[in-house]
Structure formats: structure tokens, C-alpha cells
């Protein structure tokens, strides 16, 4: 091959020696020069706005194939046989396409072009004040759902994972989510827009319980620590919004076994629909056999449950979901008697919980309509000190309908109605208490984005409570401004109403709504895998419930106290603070860490408080450090987290100032390791977690005997726990289809 080429090359080089060739050559040269005048050379340099040359920009005459790309130095040149006025197109991904008029007359055209960065490359502003979102639908997010599942401090509990975010307090003696100075009653958990009446396992005096939901049931998690949307109310502090997964990816079978029991789940996927079912048997005997508890567990928690999930697409545009879950369990534990400090008593519980939720979403080009219905029922049979029979019986029905309409890219409007009816019944020995409540809410929310850099979201909610015979009007607003390619400022605020705590309603009191006003300012910076967020807030509490007959001498830090005398809405308070969040998963491959710090200053006068004070569930300073490393060669994932909380207030009758004493600080270091392996066709995960590795004896407060002479520490049920288990799953394989 090479020789032939060389020969041709030499023939051409020697053309003048050959007369015939030379004549031909002259003719060709002449003809070519004629054509030469007909073609135009177009050249130039392409730079961005900062003057940096841009490489590989496509440059061409529109609707022709005359064109080229720029080189490393931003230079281009090409020729065209086109004549007259044409459009020169310069196009590069990441920049706006530039059209320049060029006159092609044979004269060389030299044209410098400056490219502007495309708007699409600068992510659109998103209103974020007050909210941590873990969502796969959005490209720019501080968290992804996976981060929630793999959080070592969470112990597989969705609320446990949320408690590692800034603005929350981890509380061991009471069940619930404590956010920015708010107590457990001030947070509401919603699934697909529907309030969950009993999101946690039933309360045991002095021992916090985990939530009933596993993280992987949800595709999107949005945690608002304030300033939330007009879609919701009845929460003075926080809304934790969970959205269930859509169609299962494919059919699979999943087995899970661990120190807490066994679970089986499976999913079946058809083209447009899917079913997921699961069943579990729970028995904590193995768990308690290796972790020492501070309280005696005389009846080891044992139970079972099942859940079913049906999802189907309806005519391409609609999506129907139905979800049913049933659990039952019993347990018995000897805990400090809240009514008699210093003594312990046996608390036995048998629980049954049913939760049903169904929803339908219809989506069209410029609108969607959503409607959902839910029903839940919870029943507790309580054996109080082996003498007294007690119990709870609650149910809730809820319906929501809403329509979202997009007038243009810049303006969307959402309107909806929500109806709820629920009953709460308590029984304690011969005392029976109950109430029925019906609530209605109507809401409107607009989102106006005059540019990609600025968004405003005003909202209004009108609420009605049948029980209190009261209406409320709650305006909300949130806005966001993009300050640069990666940063943005958001502001949010609003008025939030909530019914008085159930304990007062059960006693037959019918006071007014309690109220909170939020002011939030947030700065957020996200650059690929690094994010920083700082948020300052101020929350004003108005119309909190006070038990006014309580005098200084009768204060008792007992949540099970008997309430008598009159109550009113004269309580008040405030919470102000700053939350910091920094996350970096870019610096070291397979290494991800985040650091959060929150400072809070809060005081309130409510309940049976004798004067304004910081409640006993508040640490002024909270630090959380989470490290995750994936050892690629071994398929081992290691995650560790450290939490610190400064000392918490407690009631000491000797104090001259109410709730003035502080506990020592609270520390916890946890570790979890998981190993991923495929055994045959089974994908398996083996995991082990240790909470509070060093067994630090954390004290969350003290309770004093009536004479004030003796004090007893408030301690978690377990100082250090170890958990291990395995999960194996079989996923349908396309290999068989070959």
C-alpha cells in the first residue's frame, strides 16, 4: 500500500516534466481558481464573556453543511460556495446559540464571536428556605433519598435520619420529632399529602419510640423546619413530608433477617402496574439478649404485620396508588413511674395499627389534579402497673383534592381543599375521655418566577375547627433569589395555627388555636457535590396553652399529670437560632461527609411552667458529624457519626430560677458497616451497627423526689446497642430471555 501511495505522490511532484500533465495542470489551476473566487473563506475566533477562547464550537452557515468547529484556541475557518447574505451559526452546548449575518461574496469574512453562557446551565432558582429536600427529581439537591437510607445514626428509622439534620433535637425520654424549640406535638408527618395520626410506635413512659415507617418506602422526603407551604397546617414547627414510590422497577423478592426479626417482601411488575407486598415477624429477644438495658424488659416486644401496595397507570396520564399497612405487637417494660419519682412500675402494651392511603393523580400538559383519601386506626391496650387498665383508641379519615395550573412558565397556581375527621379516646381505669374533631382547610398558593433568578411563592390558608368552633387565616410567603451560579438567598415567613395538645382536648377544655409566626432567612451554595447552607430563624409563639391554676409549688415535670383548674391561651414564647450545614463528597473519591451545627435560644411559658424557661428537651448547641466511606475493592461501606448536644435544662426544686439547672453534655459515637456481595443470583447486604460505641452514660435530665432530697437521672432505655442482620434479594434477570 505504502509503495503505491509513494508512487502517486512522486507522479504528482514531477508533473512539470510531463507536458501533457502540465497542460492539464494549468487548465485545472485555471478552473480551480475560477471556483476559488466563488468560494468564501470564513474565519474567526470565539470567546466567552470573560475573554477565554471556547473550543469545539460548531460554526456553520445555516441550512448548509458548510462549517467547522473551533480548535483549542477558539479559532475556526472554513470555506463556502454559498453566495449572498446568510446566517452564520455558532452553537455550543452550555452557551446560547449566536446567529450573525454574513455576506458571502468571495472576500474573506473574518468574524469574532462572543458566546454568552446559556441560562439552562445556571440552575433555576428553587424556593428552599426552611426545607431540606431529598428528592431524585431535582438535579440540585443537598440530599438524595439514598443519603437518608444509608445514614448510620438513623438505625433504619426515617425520623432517626431526620434527627441528624440541623434544627432538630434528639430526645430520648419522649416520642416525636422536636424541631427548633418546638415540642413533639408541633411536628406533623404526612404521607402523599395525608396526615399520619400515629406515625410512631405507641408511647411508653420515659422511652422514646421509633417511627413506623422504613425509609425505602419513599422516593421523596421533604423536611420543613419552618415556613412551610399553605398545603399544610396544624403544626407550629415542622412538617415532614414523605412521598411514596411510583411503580416498582421490576419484580423482585427480598428477605431480611436480623436481631429484631424477619421480613419477606416481593414486588411484581407489569407494564403499567405493580404490586408490592410484605410481611414481617418481629421479636426483639435476640436484640435484648446482647444489649444491656437500663430498664427491665419483662415482656420482650413481639409482633407482626403486613403491607400491600398497588400502583397503576390509568391511560398514560393518570396514576392511581393504594397502600394498606397493618401492624400489631405487645411488649412490657419496667420503667420509672412518672407519678411516683424513685419507684418503677410495669408498663404493658398491646398495639394494633391500620393505615390506608389511596391517591389519584391526573397530569396534563399544563395542569395536574390530585385527590387522596386516607384512613387510619390505632388501638393501645395498656396494663398500667399491673393494676390499672388503660387504653387509647384513635381513628382518622382524611380527604384532599387539589388542582395545579400553569398559566405560563412564569406563573403557576395551586388550589385545594382538605377535610379531616378524627376521634381520640383515652381510658384510664374508670376515667374515660374522648373528643371528635372535624377540620376543613382551603388553600391557594401561587408561584411566580419573573426570571430564572427570582421566585416568589405567596400562599393563603383558611382553616376551620369544628371542635374549637374557630376559623383562622394563615398567610405564608417564600421567596428566593439566585446570587450567582451556585448560590442563592431565600426568605420565608408565615403564620401557623394548631389545635391545643390532645391532653387538654381530652379533658374537655376548648380554648383557641395556638399560633406561631416564622421568619426565616437562608443562604445556600451548591456546587456539584459540595454544599453549604446557613439558615437563621426567629419564631414567635402566641396563644400557647397555660394551666393557670398551677402555682409555683405544684410544678411537676410529669407529662401524665392530672390536669385540673382552668386553662387559657395566655402562654407565649420564642425560638431564635442559626443552623449550619456543610457537605462534601467531591474531595475524596468514595468519601462523603457532612457537618452540622445548630445554635438555639428559646424560652416559653406554657403548660404548667411557672415562668418563662427553656424546655427540658433543648440543647442550645448541637453538632453532628457524619462520615461515609465506601471501600470499592471490598464492597464494604463504613459509616460513622458523632453527635454532641450541650447540657439540657431540668427542674430542680432547689433552684432559685425555674428550670435553671443543666445536665452534662450529651455525646454519641455510632458506627455501621455493611458488606455487599452477590451469592449466586442473590444480591446480599450484611450489616452491623453499634450505637454509642463507648457506652457513654448520657443523662437527659433529673427527676426529684417530692421532698427534693433525692434525684434520679433520666436515662435512655439502652446506653449502647448493637444490631446486625442481612438482607438478600433476587431481582428478575433478563439473562433468561436470550
Amino acid at each position, binding site marked *: 500500500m505504502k509503495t503505491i501511495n509513494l508512487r502517486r505522490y512522486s507522479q504528482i511532484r514531477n508533473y512539470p516534466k510531463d507536458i501533457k500533465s502540465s497542460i492539464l495542470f494549468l487548465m485545472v489551476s485555471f478552473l480551480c481558481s475560477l471556483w476559488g473566487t466563488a468560494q468564501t473563506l470564513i474565519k474567526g475566533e470565539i470567546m466567552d464573556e470573560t475573554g477565554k477562547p471556547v473550543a*469545539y464550537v460548531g460554526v456553520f452557515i445555516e441550512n448548509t453543511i458548510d462549517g467547522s468547529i473551533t480548535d483549542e484556541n477558539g479559532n475556526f475557518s472554513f470555506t463556502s460556495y454559498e453566495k449572498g447574505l446568510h446566517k452564520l451559526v455558532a452553537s455550543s452546548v452550555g452557551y446560547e446559540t449566536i446567529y450573525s449575518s454574513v455576506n458571502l461574496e468571495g472576500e474573506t469574512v473574518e468574524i469574532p464571536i462572543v458566546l454568552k453562557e446559556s441560562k439552562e*446551565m445556571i440552575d433555576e432558582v428553587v424556593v428552599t428556605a426552611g426545607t431540606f429536600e431529598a428528592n431524585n427529581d431535582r438535579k440540585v439537591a443537598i440530599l438524595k433519598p439514598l443519603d437518608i437510607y444509608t445514614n448510620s445514626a438513623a438505625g433504619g428509622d426515617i425520623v432517626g435520619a431526620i434527627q441528624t439534620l440541623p434544627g432538630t433535637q434528639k430526645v430520648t425520654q419522649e416520642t416525636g420529632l422536636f424541631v427548633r424549640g418546638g415540642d413533639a406535638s408541633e411536628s406533623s408527618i404526612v404521607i402523599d399529602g395525608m396526615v399520619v395520626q400515629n406515625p410512631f410506635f405507641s408511647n411508653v413512659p420515659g422511652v422514646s419510640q421509633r417511627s413506623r415507617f422504613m425509609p425505602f418506602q419513599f422516593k421523596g422526603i421533604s423536611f420543613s423546619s419552618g415556613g412551610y407551604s399553605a398545603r399544610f397546617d396544624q403544626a407550629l414547627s415542622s412538617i415532614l413530608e414523605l412521598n411514596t414510590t411510583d411503580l416498582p422497577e*421490576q419484580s423482585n423478592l427480598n428477605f431480611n433477617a436480623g436481631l429484631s426479626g424477619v421480613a419477606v417482601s416481593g414486588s411484581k411488575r407489569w407494564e403499567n402496574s405493580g404490586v408490592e407486598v410484605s410481611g414481617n415477624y418481629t421479636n426483639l429477644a435476640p436484640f435484648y439478649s446482647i444489649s444491656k438495658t437500663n430498664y427491665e424488659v419483662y415482656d420482650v416486644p413481639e409482633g407482626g404485620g403486613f403491607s400491600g401496595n398497588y400502583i397503576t397507570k390509568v391511560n398514560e396520564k393518570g396514576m392511581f396508588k393504594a397502600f394498606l399497612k397493618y401492624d400489631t405487637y405487645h411488649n412490657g417494660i419496667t420503667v420509672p413511674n412518672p407519678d411516683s419519682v424513685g419507684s418503677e412500675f410495669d408498663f404493658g402494651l398491646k398495639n394494633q395499627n391500620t393505615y390506608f392511603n389511596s391517591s389519584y393523580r391526573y397530569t396534563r400538559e399544563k395542569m395536574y389534579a390530585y385527590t387522596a383519601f386516607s384512613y387510619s386506626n390505632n388501638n393501645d391496650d395498656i396494663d398500667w402497673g399491673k393494676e390499672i387498665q388503660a387504653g387509647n383508641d384513635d381513628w382518622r379519615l382524611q380527604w384532599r383534592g387539589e388542582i395545579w395550573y400553569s398559566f405560563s412558565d412564569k406563573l403557576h397556581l395551586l388550589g385545594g381543599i382538605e377535610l379531616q375527621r378524627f376521634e381520640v379516646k383515652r381510658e384510664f381505669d374508670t376515667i374515660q375521655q374522648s373528643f371528635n374533631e372535624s377540620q376543613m382547610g382551603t388553600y391557594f398558593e401561587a408561584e411566580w418566577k419573573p426570571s430564572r433568578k427570582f421566585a416568589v411563592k405567596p400562599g393563603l390558608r383558611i382553616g376551620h375547627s369544628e371542635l374549637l368552633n374557630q376559623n383562622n387565616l394563615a398567610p405564608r410567603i417564600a421567596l428566593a433569589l439566585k446570587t450567582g451560579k451556585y448560590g442563592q438567598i431565600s426568605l420565608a415567613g408565615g403564620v401557623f395555627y394548631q389545635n391545643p395538645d390532645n391532653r387538654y382536648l381530652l379533658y374537655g377544655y376548648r380554648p383557641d388555636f395556638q399560633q406561631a409566626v416564622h421568619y426565616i432567612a437562608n443562604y445556600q451554595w451548591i456546587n456539584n457535590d459540595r454544599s453549604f447552607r446557613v439558615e437563621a430563624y426567629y419564631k414567635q409563639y402566641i396563644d400557647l396553652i397555660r394551666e393557670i391554676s398551677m402555682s409555683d409549688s405544684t410544678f411537676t415535670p410529669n407529662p401524665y399529670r392530672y390536669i385540673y383548674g382552668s386553662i387559657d391561651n395566655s402562654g407565649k414564647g420564642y425560638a431564635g437560632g442559626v443552623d449550619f450545614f456543610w457537605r462534601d463528597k467531591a474531595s475524596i473519591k468514595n468519601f462523603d461527609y457532612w457537618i452540622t451545627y445548630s445554635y438555639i435560644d428559646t424560652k416559653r411559658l406554657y403548660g404548667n411552667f411557672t415562668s418563662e424557661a427553656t424546655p427540658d428537651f433543648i440543647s442550645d448547641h448541637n453538632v453532628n458529624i457524619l462520615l461515609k466511606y465506601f471501600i470499592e475493592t471490598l464492597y464494604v461501606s463504613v459509616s460513622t457519626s458523632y453527635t454532641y448536644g450541650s447540657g439540657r435544662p431540668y427542674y430542680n426544686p432547689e433552684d432559685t430560677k425555674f428550670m435553671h439547672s443543666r445536665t452534662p453534655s450529651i455525646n454519641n459515637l455510632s458506627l455501621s458497616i455493611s458488606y455487599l456481595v452477590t451469592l449466586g443470583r442473590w444480591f446480599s447486604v450484611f450489616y452491623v451497627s453499634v450505637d454509642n460505641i463507648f457506652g457513654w452514660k448520657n443523662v437527659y435530665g433529673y427527676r426529684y423526689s417530692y421532698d427534693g432530697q433525692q434525684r434520679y437521672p433520666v436515662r435512655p432505655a439502652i446506653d449502647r446497642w448493637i444490631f446486625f442482620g442481612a438482607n438478600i434479594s433476587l431481582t428478575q434477570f433478563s439473562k433468561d430471555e436470550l
Partner: protein
Amino acid sequence: MYCTIVVSTLTLSAQDFEPTLAATLAQFEKDSTIEMIAATVNRFEMIAGKWNDQWLAHYYAAYGESIYTYIEKDENKRDAWLDKADIHLQQAEQLYGQESDELFVLRALLSSARLSVDPRNRWKEYGEIFDQNITKAKSINPANPRIYYLQGNSLYYTPKMFGGGPKNAMPFYEEADSLYQQMNIDSLGISPTWGKPQNTLMLGNCKESVTSE
């Protein structure tokens, strides 16, 4: 000689769709640097602009753009490339006007390119779209080798612990290989034939890692 070369390139560049596309495709197979690939992809786009009514022009613009995303490093830009590819694919589908295995295969290619931008968070959504299109393509023409080539790629780059890896991918590449062998090249050389050299390369990689295990 000299003259005919000039004349032929001239007529070629100015006139005929099929030879122009065929030459560009041949060039794409030879491209070895980022700059060369960028230039050829740009040429595919110019062809789609000039012969706006040819479904294959849009088909190859979408194909070139999705291949380019594997070179591009910026995540946002990779998505922007795929946005362009989506538009070209839609135009190709409209112009073709009926279901085609090649168009489903291309849609599968685009979804796996989307997945590769952010695998950890996108595997579920785009894995599903990938599977659906592969199934549809297979139902129309199970003898299309690109179906198995793409399935092989998808498995090859799936971590072994999730059922992927060279060993699991190999049967797909083998299937694709035997179908590529039987493939007849049409006279114009512009109907989709891509993937053969890459498949051979990947099959080689698989064999190597399976024997070294």
C-alpha cells in the same frame, strides 16, 4: 485527477444527502480524538439542519450527540447534549411515522447515556426506560444486534454485586457478535449498522477478565 477530486467533493458537499451522510459515518468510525469526534458530531447536526426532512439525518444527529456525552465531563452539559439528542430523536420518530426497532434501540441508548450522568441516583428511572425500549425493539426485530450490544454494555458497567460485570455481560456481546456477522451492509451504507467494532472490543474485554478470574 486533481480536478475530479475537487469536483466530486464539491458536488458531494453541495448536493446529495446519502453520500454525504455515508462519508460522515465513515469518518465517525475513524475519529480518534475528541476534536475529531466533536467535528463529526457537528457535521451530523449540520446534515440534520440541511436535510431536515430525512429521518436518518435526525437519527444520526441524536446518535452522535449521545455518544459525545461520554466524552463531555460537565454533568450539566451532558444533560444539555442529551436534551438536543432527545429533540432529534423525536423528529426522527415523527418523520419515520411508524414503530422501528432502530428508533427504540436509539431511545435505549439515550436513556443509558442519561443514566451514566448520575448512576447512583438515576439507575432506577432510566434503567426502567432502557428496559422498556429494549423490549419493544426486541418485539419488532429480535435479530437487531445493537439490542444485545446495548444490553451487554448496560450489564458490563453495572457493578458485579448488582448482577452486572463482564461475566454476566459476555453472553449478550456474544449474541450481538453472531448477529453482527450475519448483518448485510446496504449499498448506500447509511442505514444503522453501528456498534460492531465496539462490540468486538467489549467482547474481548469480557473474555480477558473472565479468563483472568
